[in-house]
């Protein structure tokens, strides 16, 4: 029924109409050229660390009890040492291998430590001289990056687990 109806209404004298797509192609070409020239295929990020320095600030007259967290990075193992600044110091020491699994376990131990001491935000890192820079960055990631932060949600800073890292080995 409907087909018959449609056929009846087809006009007989419509000229051939062609869409002019040349401007569209021009725009696409220009956009492509601009994007290809300005594209950066390596996304660059930053990790902030500090070195120890001498300060002439007067020390706290009433020191508070806080947790000292030290990380020793060797070629094959990572040692996490903790101690409170005021007695009882409750010293602990845990070793992890420097394999990806070991670094993941080290990261979980730091998360656990953060849950128990949420106010502490500083880690002092000591490294052996033969440790490669990329291994050190893996350890820094494990110390600083909070995996629970959803980075797909426009988060610009996920360095929130232990944001302050002091390179303890860099001393004269």
């Amino acid at each position, binding site marked *: 029924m409907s087909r018959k109806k449609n056929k009846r209404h087809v006009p007989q004298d419509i000229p051939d109409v062609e869409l002019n*797509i040349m401007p569209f192609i021009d725009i696409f*070409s220009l956009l492509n050229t601009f994007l290809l020239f300005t594209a*950066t295929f390596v996304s*660059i990020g930053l*990790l902030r660390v500090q*070195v120890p320095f001498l300060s002439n600030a007067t020390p706290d007259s009433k020191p508070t009890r806080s947790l000292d967290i030290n990380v020793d990075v060797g070629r094959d193992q990572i040692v996490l040492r903790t101690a409170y600044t005021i007695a009882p110091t409750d010293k602990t020491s845990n070793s992890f291998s420097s394999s990806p699994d070991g670094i993941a376990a080290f990261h979980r131990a730091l998360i656990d430590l953060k849950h128990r001491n949420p106010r502490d935000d500083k880690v002092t890192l000591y490294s052996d*001289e*033969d440790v490669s*820079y990329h291994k050190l960055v893996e350890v820094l990631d494990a110390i600083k990056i909070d995996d629970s932060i959803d980075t797909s949600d426009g988060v610009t800073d996920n360095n929130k687990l232990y944001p302050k890292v002091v390179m303890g080995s860099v001393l*004269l």
Partner: protein
Amino acid sequence: MAVSGGASTETISLPITPMLDIFSILVTFLLMSYSSDPISHDPNPALELPDSKTTVSLDEVPAVVVSKNEVLVNDKKVVTVIGGTVEKRHTTQGAIYPLFQELVKLNTTNKNYADASAKSGGDKVSTLTLEMDKNHRFELMKMIMLSAQQAKFVTFKLVVSKEKS
């Protein structure tokens, strides 16, 4: 060929739909991967950056670049790196002396700029952005950090390659 004969009036139309398809896909891909980082910086071709999960973006061009073979301060070669370390004659007290001299000049320039522009400049003056090859050992990194520490730089921004999540 038929057209070149001259007699035929047959029109040949080039199918541009596949080309449009390619263009659309390419534009979509480029727009999706377009970086909106505040600074666009191409790493030195003579080095490979370590991968990191950080989301913090680069905010200034690295001042110190440590490639596989040399140490550069603002693109000026300061010292040669041989076998992952610096020749003994360039080192004093664990630091690299020519690098220390360049960093003192850089810190003075930064400080003068901060004073002239009446900004606090505290962060800029004491912060150094470091781009380094991922295969170097901590031995070299320590020498560079010691040189910078003596030139009054206490905070370092380590340049890394962001891992794609």
